[in-house]
Structures are given as structure tokens and as C-alpha cells.
């Protein structure tokens, strides 16, 4: 179980995307893990072949617990993909079902540490240490995730928007016929397929969307992740009671309703003797030791919010306890940057439009080249600068709390790429679809409260990082220059930094470096 942030000490495995025998490559997404903050897609950090899945879906284990074993390419044990050893039945149609060998023992065995001890030497243990080495799991792309195409055939041609839409609707792109140029699948194709999926009895080939009466609800209200989980479990969303805002169905609800029972070969809810009522309310939860305590009931959204608050409390308290912060602020003339932006956007269609945020991120990333002391980690009594600049972006979640996933290599990306990455990141954060590397890799974090009208924000450093850059709102202010007074759009940028890693003088140079770059937006 990788540490997906300084504030995480345990995680619940939700779903495996791989099975024993699958070949995996570094960066492949292999599992879905629930932290107190969000469901995170865990990437594998080395190439190899999946040996054994040690933690079954639904189980919560401490950070550091091995999740699976990865065998080096050519390693004898279980290297043959199909004829898996020990008669483990690998069901190709149900990749999320772990080997039966792992299942029967589960109720009898205490969850994590024992499993760790019993792990063969080839087990890749995930440490709390450097996050980049933490997640030891496995790989090949599985069709369980709608967005991902089956392994062998090439990905269906589809527009990125169509892909997103398909993922949100739980539509398998492979089953959609593209009507775009060269047969590319468009968003409309996905919508048509989704509509057909929702109403299988509707006349086929109806290109028009079903007409809905004004009183009729649009559809069952559920998050995209809930839909995905429901589809996988074969749960009918219409029968799941929602506990989210306005009764929206969250994936926790779906799970609570027809939770992942790894040993159940039959993923149909009818075959499950589980209560059809709403998930147990907080007070109603059994408090005594349950024999099969390995699997906890899915948390309600209130519990989830409380958990997120606790996680934030832990990380921020740790930061304020250990990190001697210093704070700096500087007002920047934004007229050149905004003029440049306006000029650029005028000639562009909506799909290519830039927001000031893209310029700010690029300037903050590039400025670390001048003052590397703000970019990196403070660990074990020393500062470790980072060559890469992975910029964390604070995103507040509407359901409460916040999350700060990273845009990788922000200093090397052009503005268009940064803008696209930022939009994608915000969209996925809203849907709680983030990846492990995004949660652990940030080398410097930014926060932008400008949208909320805040003029300046002084942050708290997120450990083990050493600095946090705050951007406020653009406001028109009197600006004196060369003895002349004028009204200019201005923005206040701030730095909260770890005095163990840098001093105020260097921090000041960093803010100046950001300003210098924003005054020459054509070079960003």
C-alpha cells in the first residue's frame, strides 16, 4: 500500500485491474485504492509480471503493506501467463477476481502484517519511504475500465472528449460505431450508445436523444465512479439508495449495496444475500469485534468528510509543528500577461482558450530554475532538491476539503499543454479519479484562491515539500511607474517556505523570478 500523501496511514483496496500472470510496465495503472480523500488509481513502478495479489478488494491495510508480488521478466515462479501454477483458476472474463487461493484464508487471517510476513522474498514491499518507490503492484491494461481498450486490439479511435464521456457513462468504446471522420468515435456516438444502454428497449439507431418530459428526472443521479463500479458489479443503480449531496449515489453506496465479494463468482446482486436496505447509518454500525472484520462497511459521505478533515488536520498540524515557515509577498503588474492572453484567445476557438492560471503555473515552474531551494523535499534532516518540477495544484472539493494533485514536468510543458493538463486535472479531481503518481510526486505546490475573490493567500507547506506558492485574484490597483500613476491589473503572489531549506533572501529572489517571467509573457 503506497503512501499517497503525508496524511495517509492506511488505504482500502477497491479493485484490481490486473491478475496474476499479467505483464506490467512501469506507469501502468494496476489498482484502485481508497484513501481518506479520494479513490486513487495506483500505478506500478517497475516492469515485470504479476505474481500474486496479496490484498483482496475491500480490505483496508496500513501503508507499507505489500499489495502484490511482481516477478522479474523470466522469473520462473508463475511466469507462464495462462497455465498459472497451483491450479489457480484464472478467469479471463473476471479479472478482478483474485486467485481463489487467496480467498479462503482471508476470514481466518488477520489482515495486513501477517500477510506481509508470509510474503515470499520476491514480494515487492511498498514502503512509506520515497513515494516513487512505494507502490509495488502490477499491470496490463484491463477492459474493466471502460476507458481502457482490450489489450490486444488497438484502441478504438475516439476523440478525447468522447473517451471521457464514455468513461463517465460506463460505455465500452469498443462497442461503439464511430460516425466521425475516418470512423472516429465522437461524443455524440458515445451519448447515443449510453442512451441505448440506459434504455435498451428504445428503438435502435435512434440518433436523436430521448425526449424527456420536464418533470422526469434526467436520470439516476450517480457519480461517474459510482456508475463504473455499478457496471462492474452488475448493480442496478436505480435500486441503490444515494447518500451523497441531494441523494446522489456515490460509489460507496454502490459498494455498500452490492460490495465487492472477491469470493463470489457471481457478480449479480440477485444472487447475493445482502440486505436491500440503505447502508448502515453511523450509529447502527456494529461496534463489537466482528469475526470477518477484515472488510469494513463502506463509509457514508459524512464519515468520508470527517475522515478527510482528519487527514488534513494531521498533515497541516505536522507541517506547523515541524516546519519553520517564513512568508513573503509581492504585487505584480499583470497588464502585459493579460494583454497577451487576450490577444491569443481572440484568435482561438474555445477549445484552445487559455486562462491566466496557465501563465501563473508556467512562471512558478520556470522560476524554480533560478531558485531551486523551493523545489524538492525536506527529509531526514536535509533538503533534497528535485530536478523535475512537478507542480501540485490545490483544488477545493465541493463536498468539502481539498486535494493537491500534481502536473508533471510543468516547467517543460508549453502553455497549451499546461492548460489542457489543468482542465483535465480539475475535471478528474471533481470525479475523484486521480492517479497515485499525481498524489505523491508534487515537488512544489501552488494554490489559487483568486476565483473566490481572495486578494492574497499565505499557505501552509505540505510536507515533505518545502514551499507553497499562493496566487490571489487579479484586481485593478493604482500603479506608479516612472513617476506616472495609472490603474493596472495586479496580482499578489506569495511564498510560504521552509526556513530549513531556504532563507527569506532566496525566497524573495524566487518571487522576483516569477514576476520577471510574467512581465515577459511571450517567453512563457
Amino acid at each position: 500500500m503506497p503512501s499517497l500523501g503525508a496524511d495517509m496511514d492506511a488505504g482500502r483496496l477497491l479493485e484490481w485491474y490486473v491478475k496474476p500472470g499479467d505483464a506490467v510496465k512501469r506507469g501502468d495503472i494496476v489498482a484502485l485504492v481508497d484513501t481518506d480523500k479520494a479513490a486513487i488509481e495506483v500505478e506500478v513502478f517497475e516492469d515485470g509480471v504479476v505474481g500474486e495479489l496479496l490484498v483482496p478488494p475491500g480490505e483496508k491495510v496500513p501503508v507499507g503493506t505489500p499489495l502484490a508480488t511482481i516477478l522479474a521478466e523470466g522469473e520462473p515462479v508463475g511466469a507462464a501467463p495462462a497455465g498459472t501454477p497451483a491450479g489457480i483458476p484464472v478467469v479471463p472474463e473476471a479479472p478482478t477476481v483474485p486467485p481463489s487461493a487467496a480467498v479462503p484464508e482471508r476470514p481466518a487471517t488477520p489482515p495486513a502484517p501477517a500477510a506481509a510476513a508470509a510474503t515470499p522474498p520476491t514480494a515487492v514491499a511498498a514502503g512509506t519511504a520515497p513515494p516513487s518507490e512505494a507502490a509495488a503492484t502490477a499491470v496490463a491494461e484491463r477492459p474493466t475500465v471502460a476507458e481502457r481498450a482490450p489489450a490486444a486490439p488497438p484502441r478504438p479511435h475516439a476523440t478525447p472528449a468522447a473517451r471521457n464521456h464514455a468513461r463517465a457513462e460506463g460505455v465500452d468504446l469498443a462497442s461503439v460505431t464511430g460516425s466521425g471522420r475516418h470512423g472516429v468515435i465522437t461524443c455524440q456516438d458515445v451519448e447515443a450508445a449510453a442512451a441505448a444502454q440506459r434504455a435498451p428497449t428504445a428503438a435502435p439507431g435512434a440518433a436523436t436523444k430521448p425526449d424527456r418530459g420536464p418533470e422526469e428526472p434526467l436520470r439516476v443521479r450517480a457519480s461517474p465512479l459510482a456508475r463504473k463500479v455499478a457496471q462492474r458489479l452488475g448493480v442496478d443503480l436505480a435500486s441503490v439508495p444515494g447518500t451523497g449531496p441531494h441523494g446522489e449515489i456515490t460509489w460507496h453506496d454502490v459498494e455498500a449495496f452490492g460490495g465487492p465479494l472477491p469470493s463470489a463468482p457471481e457478480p449479480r446482486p440477485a444472487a447475493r444475500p445482502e440486505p436491500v436496505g440503505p447502508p448502515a447509518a453511523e450509529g447502527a454500525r456494529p461496534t463489537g469485534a466482528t469475526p470477518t472484520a477484515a472488510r469494513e462497511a463502506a463509509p457514508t459521505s459524512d464519515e468520508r468528510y470527517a475522515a478527510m478533515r482528519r487527514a488534513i488536520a494531521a498533515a497541516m498540524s505536522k507541517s506547523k509543528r515541524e516546519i519553520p515557515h517564513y512568508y513573503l509577498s509581492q504585487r505584480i503588474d499583470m497588464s502585459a500577461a493579460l494583454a497577451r492572453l487576450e490577444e491569443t484567445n481572440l484568435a482561438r476557438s474555445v477549445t484552445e482558450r487559455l486562462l491566466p492560471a496557465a501563465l501563473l503555473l508556467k512562471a512558478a515552474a520556470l522560476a524554480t530554475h533560478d531558485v531551486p531551494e523551493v523545489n524538492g523535499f525536506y527529509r531526514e534532516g536535509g533538503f533534497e532538491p528535485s530536478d523535475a518540477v512537478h507542480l501540485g495544484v490545490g483544488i477545493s472539493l465541493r463536498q468539502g476539503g481539498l486535494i493537491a494533485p500534481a502536473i508533471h514536468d510543468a516547467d517543460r510543458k508549453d502553455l497549451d499543454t499546461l492548460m489542457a493538463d489543468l482542465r483535465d486535472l480539475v475535471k478528474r479531481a471533481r470525479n475523484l479519479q486521480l492517479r497515485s503518481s499525481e498524489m505523491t510526486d508534487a515537488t512544489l505546490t501552488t494554490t489559487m484562491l483568486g476565483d473566490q475573490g481572495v486578494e492574497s493567500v499565505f499557505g501552509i507547506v505540505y510536507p515533505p515539500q518545502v514551499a507553497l506558492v499562493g496566487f490571489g485574484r487579479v484586481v485593478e490597483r493604482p500603479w506608479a511607474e516612472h513617476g506616472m500613476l495609472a490603474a493596472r491589473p495586479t496580482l499578489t503572489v506569495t511564498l510560504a517556505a521552509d526556513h530549513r531549506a531556504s532563507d527569506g533572501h532566496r525566497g524573495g529572489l524566487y518571487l522576483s523570478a516569477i514576476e520577471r517571467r510574467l512581465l515577459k509573457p511571450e517567453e512563457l
Partner: protein
Amino acid sequence: MTMKAPIASESELRSTVLELLSQVAPDSDPNAIDPDASIQDQLDIDSIDFLNFIMSVHERTGIDIAERDYTKVATVNDCVRYLAGKAG
């Protein structure tokens, strides 16, 4: 392509707008929106969410909402009117 055919009725435009908003703000309830109050305020969405919304409108309807026109699509009713005007 037939997809870019003008979207006929206002009610269809309205349901499209509400559906696209629900994608941008998956944890909110577009049906509970006051059609005459600010979308951004009610859904508590930021400028990036709003851009995502504008882009999805473009993708669905082919209508490009210019940056200077953002104030004309601030509410659901305004947005529907604006799109109807462009589509007509």
C-alpha cells in the same frame, strides 16, 4: 454531419445545458438550480470548471461562446437564450 444539426427546441437546449453542467459539477444537482441565478455561484465552480462547461457546449452544439460573451451565459436561462439565438 447530422450531429451539428440545429438543436430544435428550447427544452432540448435546456436539458443539454443541465446535463453538461452535471458533468462539470458531478456532485451537484442541476435540477435544483435557480435558472435566473448565477451558475458559477450556485454550483460553486471555478473558472476552470466554467471553461470545461463552455468547451462541452461547443463540443455538443458546435456553438463557440466567445470570452467576451461569458457574462451573457451566466445563468441557465441566459445560456439557453444565447444558444437558441446562435443556433437559430
